[in-house]
């Protein structure tokens, strides 16, 4: 699937002369003698097809103008998918352009290729990207999630990177609801079926539950790949006359979705309905990974792109556009799964596990043999041309002939109307005086840690193979971020996904900032220096000015935080139209962030380790209950403003943490997020199932921003920029001194040890009780 920002950054046509120019010659365009496509369909039918692709009359007129004639059915389909929201980012692009994308660490910036690439040093680099598969997962959770995994993995090995990790950000309705449970179990099974078989460990991610996602779950999958920084594969067509190879599974009519109605009418006697959801084959993908990486290693592959959304259409036109050239293919050469497929079907099919390769002219046989060894077909279906056009033939008949620039750069762009939603004033008002303060704060803690969003997620991640490739040095559920070793290097890679829909619902700008801030905090808690982000922006219908306002504000928040942290955006995906009968979902940005751990000390985990260790909290606690899990779970309120995001303070906190971790001072570190300080302390006590630890801390030592903070806010409020850590007493002094020097509020709260978690004077709970509550919450 295409990247964020992609079309704006393409340099269409600038480099063509290098490769033989655009001049038509018999050699470069062997079929130039053929006539232009002849559209025989009635205008009325064409308009219906256009309509099925959500093309307006105005847009349709634009197509006629670009072509200078009536389009063929195939051409309408090609424009329909290329100019769709999904492929063209027509509503979001004006905002995505504002993201910071540059940085010393960025080797491939957003939009240039199928995924961004970031330098790790010592010749190593990572390609990474996140993508949504929300709608397919809502219809058919197992295959929807499975093909989401398959698609994002292809985006990564297309870059020449070996996929080394998957993370999933999942959002569902309450798990006690039958439908939500069904979706949860299906999605987890889909991720497991595909990810486990394909041999890429699912090492992390996050899951949250909220009524807003009941009918529209979010399934965002992030993949990370490792490559040598000098061998990045490119997705551009080069060299007029070079062969275009189709590789992988055959093309079927799966994934034609809404468009299939039209195509069915066209091919007489065509089959009954096909599901719009594609079916994944992880075995084919595993073979495709190995064969593709082998093929790239030969140096004979010039350009490569996976066939994701809009399959052949997208891959051919985007590769041609990136290279400033054209591509001509013959659909009759495309391996097909069934008879009677029209060019329209073939061009729009979203069958899985397929790639498009452009190879050196004399390499076709060698590359074909290489794929055959993995029992995969590799078939030459066309050539690179110099005329900047996507030309599709069915045998001798030309069925589409379109300037690629019109498909990619020429897509309509919208500056959609934005309006601040009126609900905000109402929900942001939180009359704290009317929120009763519970007497049994220990009971509140027990309820909170058993709430599905906070509870132990091992029932989920134990269904994923998180250990294959033997680099997962921190197991899921043991630290704030996933940590992978880089074999043979004295460095580790850390990754996380974060994003609170509730905060964004209450204030999308602050919510966007907080999503990035929490991701960065999670990384520094394992000792990693944040490097860059990929983002998946899940919103409602962009034609609604309120939704567009949420989007605009959220992007502004994310962009500001990324600038403040020097973590550029390297790509991602926008998912609009996440709606259900009751309205839009909470606006939910998911930030996938990667970082690197350097130095001798290695990763830090989140659980308390040894009796007598000092417990320290970094950061200041304010009276901030807005949008908290506490308000939602205990008081049933989705209200207030989210906690303040102080980006400068977050940045200083990040630097302090990286320094302290590198110095080897930290035994544990855990960020205060859902459930606040009390939940963070409780989790550090119980996260390690083999070694639960008690803790005794004194509430009055917690650094406060005001003279008085009500106890429930102090314990369960979600003020940003706070981390609970533990260290040997020996390192307490240098740690506090450093914090003081850089201006991070810090205090020793107490010690690790004993059979209970005591937060004097409010909470005294046996660790055993907390552990049971936490472990039973989601099982």
């Amino acid at each position, binding site marked *: 699937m295409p990247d964020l920002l992609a079309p704006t950054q393409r340099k269409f046509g600038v480099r063509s002369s290098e490769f033989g120019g655009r001049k038509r010659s018999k050699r470069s365009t062997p079929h130039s003698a053929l006539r232009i496509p002849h559209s025989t369909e009635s205008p009325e039918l064409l308009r219906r097809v256009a309509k099925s692709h959500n093309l307006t009359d105005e847009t349709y007129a634009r197509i006629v103008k670009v072509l200078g004639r009536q389009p063929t059915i195939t051409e309408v389909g090609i424009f329909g998918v290329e100019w769709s929201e999904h492929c063209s980012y027509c509503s979001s692009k004006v905002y995505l352009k504002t993201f910071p994308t540059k940085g010393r660490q960025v080797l491939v910036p957003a939009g240039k290729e199928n995924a961004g690439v970031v330098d790790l040093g010592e010749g190593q680099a990572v390609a990474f990207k996140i993508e949504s598969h929300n709608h397919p997962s809502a219809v058919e959770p197992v295959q929807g999630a499975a093909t989401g995994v398959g698609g994002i993995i292809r985006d990564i090995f297309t870059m020449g990177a070996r996929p080394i990790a998957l993370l999933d950000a999942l959002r569902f309705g309450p798990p006690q609801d039958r439908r939500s449970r069904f979706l949860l179990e299906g999605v987890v099974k889909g991720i497991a079926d595909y990810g486990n078989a394909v041999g890429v460990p699912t090492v992390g991610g996050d899951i949250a539950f909220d009524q807003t996602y009941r009918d529209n779950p979010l399934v965002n999958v992030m993949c990370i790949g490792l490559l040598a920084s000098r061998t990045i594969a490119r997705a551009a067509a080069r060299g007029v006359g070079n062969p275009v190879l189709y590789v992988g599974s055959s093309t079927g009519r799966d994934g034609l979705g809404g468009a299939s109605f039209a195509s069915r009418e066209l091919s007489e006697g065509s089959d009954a309905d096909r599901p719009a959801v594609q079916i994944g084959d992880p075995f*084919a993908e595993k073979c495709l990974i190995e064969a593709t990486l082998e093929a790239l290693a030969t140096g004979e592959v010039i350009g490569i792109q996976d066939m994701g959304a809009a399959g052949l259409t997208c891959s051919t036109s985007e590769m041609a556009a990136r290279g400033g050239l054209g591509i001509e293919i013959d659909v009759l050469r495309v391996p097909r799964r069934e008879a009677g497929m029209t060019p329209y079907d073939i061009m729009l099919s979203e069958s899985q596990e397929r790639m498009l390769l452009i190879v050196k002219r004399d390499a076709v046989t060698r590359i074909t043999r290489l794929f055959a060894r993995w029992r995969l077909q590799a078939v030459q279906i066309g050539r690179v041309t110099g005329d900047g056009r996507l030309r599709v033939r069915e045998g001798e008949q030309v069925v589409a002939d379109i300037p690629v620039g019109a498909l990619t750069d020429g897509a309509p762009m919208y500056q959609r109307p934005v309006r601040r939603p009126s609900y905000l004033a109402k929900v942001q008002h939180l009359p704290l005086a009317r929120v009763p303060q519970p007497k049994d704060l220990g009971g509140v803690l027990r309820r909170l840690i058993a709430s599905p969003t906070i509870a132990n997620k091992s029932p989920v991640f*134990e269904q994923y193979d998180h250990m*294959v490739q*033997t680099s*997962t040095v921190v197991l899921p559920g043991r630290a704030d971020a996933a940590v992978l070793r880089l074999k043979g290097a004295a460095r580790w890679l850390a990754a996380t996904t974060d994003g609170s829909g509730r905060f964004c619902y209450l204030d999308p700008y602050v919510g966007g900032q907080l999503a990035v801030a929490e991701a960065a905090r999670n990384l520094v808690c394992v000792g990693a220096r944040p490097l860059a982000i990929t983002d998946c922006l899940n919103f409602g219908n962009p034609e609604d000015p309120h939704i567009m306002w949420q989007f605009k504000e959220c992007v502004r928040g994310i962009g500001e935080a990324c600038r403040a942290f020097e973590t550029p955006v390297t790509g991602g995906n926008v998912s609009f139209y996440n709606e259900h009968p009751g309205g839009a979902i909470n606006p939910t940005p998911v930030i996938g962030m990667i970082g690197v751990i350097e130095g001798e000390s290695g990763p830090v985990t989140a659980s308390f380790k040894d009796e007598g260790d000092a417990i320290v909290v970094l950061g200041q606690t304010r009276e901030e209950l807005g949008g908290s899990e506490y308000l939602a779970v205990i008081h049933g309120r989705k209200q207030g403003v989210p906690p303040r995001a102080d980006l400068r303070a977050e940045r200083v906190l990040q630097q302090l943490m990286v320094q302290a971790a590198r110095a080897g001072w930290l035994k544990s570190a855990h960020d205060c997020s859902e459930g606040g300080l009390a939940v963070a302390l409780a989790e550090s006590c119980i996260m390690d199932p083999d070694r639960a630890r008690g803790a005794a801390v004194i509430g009055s030592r917690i650094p406060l921003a005001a003279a008085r903070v009500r106890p429930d806010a102090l314990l369960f409020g979600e003020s940003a920029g706070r981390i609970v850590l533990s260290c040997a007493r020996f390192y307490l002094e240098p740690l506090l001194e450093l914090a003081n020097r850089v201006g991070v509020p810090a205090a020793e709260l107490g010690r690790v040890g004993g059979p209970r978690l005591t937060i004097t004077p409010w909470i005294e709970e046996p660790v055993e009780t907390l552990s049971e509550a936490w472990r039973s919450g989601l099982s």
Partner: protein
Amino acid sequence: MKVGVVIFPGSNCDADCLYVLKDVLGQDAVSLWHQDTALRGCDAIVLPGGFSYGDYLRTGAVARLSPIMGAVRRFASGGGLVLGICNGFQILLESGLLPGAILRNTGLRFICRFVTLRVERTDTPFTNRFKPGQVIRMPIAHNEGRYTAEAKTIRQIQPQVAFRYCGPDGQVGDAFNPNGSVEAIAGLTNAAGNVLGLMPHPERSSEAALGSEDGRLIFESMIESLAHA
């Protein structure tokens, strides 16, 4: 020791096995392709984990028909050491090199986590570095790991059981049996003792960085027994 690690299409633990053998243990290790018919002078063969041929039919059912398995069968019948891990174990069962069969886990879910195992035999070429009754930690990662066999076979193979799932103190019981295997069998050898199949992953527990080094003892036992052969 020269070890051959067989790569079937769909294998996904082959690189992990090669890494342990070569980089951790410094052995000579080569990859063998499923269509090979010769074992290239290897002293031992490893069938790694994964999803050979997608495992769409029945785990290991297609892999047993691949050309290399003929050579592996001859090698085993001549006394050569063959280790099957996870999917490799399933292939050994399908090939008839080990008795019994594998069913889906009783919980009907894929399970990936560390388990504790009790070492039942220390006189095999795969287990001579363990202590009798030693309790060890290794991870499992499978959807189909429930070992089963006819009652008569179970009686016969008692002396061949190499590992059982157990509790922290070595106790065997339902609470410690992750997949419902008969008599908590996690791994067993053939009657001659030169073929071992097990569901847990020794290659994922051969380094301190991964949380356990117990699995390495299996590879070290093989090295030791070949050195004295």
